[in-house]
């Protein structure tokens, strides 16, 4: 029987992950307040932090790190692939409307 408890993971690492997530959230909030970066840089910084946070959640809390490689890769590439395709085709249009002045 498949048993997730077999991994050599102790509970402690989940507390570490939880702490890391809280710290990253704090960093995000501080970034939001201090506004060190201009908006676009800030967006990039926030998104990078969010991706790190979600990777922690997916990898540890949701245990994907401990699943088989084929499951990891298929799921992640399918979803991320769709987002990338959407990104490359949606935004040229959104920006183009800005330039055309259609509001």
């Amino acid at each position: 029987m498949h048993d997730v408890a077999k991994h050599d993971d102790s509970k402690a690492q989940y507390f570490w992950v939880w702490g890391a997530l809280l710290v990253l959230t704090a960093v995000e909030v501080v970034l939001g307040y201090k506004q060190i970066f201009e908006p676009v840089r800030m967006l990039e910084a926030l998104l990078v932090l969010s991706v790190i946070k979600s990777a922690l959640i997916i990898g540890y809390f949701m245990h994907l790190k401990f699943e088989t490689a084929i499951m990891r890769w298929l799921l992640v590439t399918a979803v991320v692939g769709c987002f990338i395709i959407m990104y490359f085709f949606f935004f040229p249009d959104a920006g183009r409307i800005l330039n055309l002045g259609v509001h």
Partner: protein
Amino acid sequence: MATPASVHAHAPQGFIRKYIFSLDHKVIGIQYFFLALTAVFVGMFLSLLMRIHLIWPTASLPLVGTIQPETYLSLLTMHGTIMVFFVLTTAPQGGFGNYFLPIQIGAPDMAFPVLNMLSFWTTFVGFVVIICAFFVTGGAPLHGWTGYAPLSALPSAGPGEQLGADLWITSIAIFCIASLLGALNFLTTTLDMRAKGMTMMRMPLTCWSWFITAILGLLAFGVLLSAGILLLMDRNLGTSFYVPLVVVNGQVMGHKGGSPLLWQHLFWFFGHPEVYIAILPGMGVTSQILSTFSRKPIFGYRAMVYAMLSIGFFGFMVWGHHMFMSGMSPYSAFAFSILTMCIGVPSAIKTFNWLGTMYKGRIRFSTPMLYAIGFVSLFVSGGLSGPFLAQPVLDIQLHDTYFVVGHFHLIMGVAAIFGIFAATYYWFPKMFGRMMNETWGKLHFFLTLAGTYAIFMPMHYLGMAGQTRRYSQFTEVAYQTKLLPLQTFMTYAAFITIAAQLIFVINLFWSMFKGPKASDNPWESTTLEWTTSTPPPHDNFGGVTPVVHHGPYEYGVPGAAKDYVMQTDPATSTAH
């Protein structure tokens, strides 16, 4: 929310648990089949009304009276929606997929039987809701099956855009949920429940096609769901996701700042995979039938699998070719054009493999085989106009004309329907335990093939001659009246084709009760569903789990006792 997975252990007793709220994938498959059969007749009736209105716009018909121009748009919308969602998506995947996927991979049931039942009943509710749209104030919506905003987002835009449009969107949203629950069930079943020896590369191509269709459904329907939710918000909560500043009948609407293009992007991100959701199961069935009735292994099994996978893969990157007319970025249009033409490659691989399968085969021209050949024919003649439409320059000329109508009806509509017919004639003996009548089947085939070509081929000429889509009355436009004889011809062809479908229905129900009893393997086919009894017992294989030793299409094997080797035959009977 996923339901826990486990299987009902006993065959259920009592009519309701056995036939209505059944957890048995076979019963659910038949329920889907009959839902699609009902839907296809509703859709066909609507198309008949449209064809009549096109040539006799002022005629007063029994029951419906005189069709108004806006009613024509309602008919068009509901015809498209019902056909695409409740027939082309429901019958091949929900119907035959549900029935035969578990049997063909040697499983006792789907991975999540309760979820399977809920999927069906959710679909059913969706169908009821969309039918209700006919009977509310204002009638059915006008915005076409694509529901382009802002027309679909403004209740004041037309009579059908009131409650009818809300019901339409609600129905689509319900259908999305049902389909994505169904899709994850299909995927889990295929991944987890294959019998011993049934490796992925030994699955029949039908299973591969259902599997890939389920991947597309899983990734595409979620996007349509959120697009629909936003559209409902625009309509009922006054937000402006899709609606720019817009004036209707001289009145400024309260919206501003939205983008109709956003709806088109989200819709077609779902919509193009949806085309493959409709056609891929047909491809799988055709491969299965061509191989069986040519008594030859399928030509290039692996190539077929990879071709289907790449069709699915490219299917997600080409949605923009529906939007060349929309003012989309020309750079995206260029990329979409190239990617669209890439799909021609795997499609051609499949076509040549089908021809290669039939080449020098000992072909048995039974009705399923005829329909499979018909599928290939329609796939080619409908597909060839695809590369034309993939060119933005040509597409701008042809997009809003009958050329596109002819194109998608041939390849996505009728070809997929031929796949469904082929599957019906092929699997009917297994599903209902009796054979269908061959003579009537063949008559049905020839009438339908000739009839559909007679309806949809002239549309290409009409389109190139400049006849526009979605116009309800060509009789009032001087330069269009010259083309009316062709429209009249198409309407008469439609009468004959629709009448021919009555042959099918009579044959279906007559054979269900009066047809000759079918043996366990009437077509001498090799896949697992033909190893079990007819119709299959509740757990499909009567308590044993089959063990698979062979690929799915071992026909005409040299040195074997028969001209075919069942997948479950012992490994020693042939060198493998």
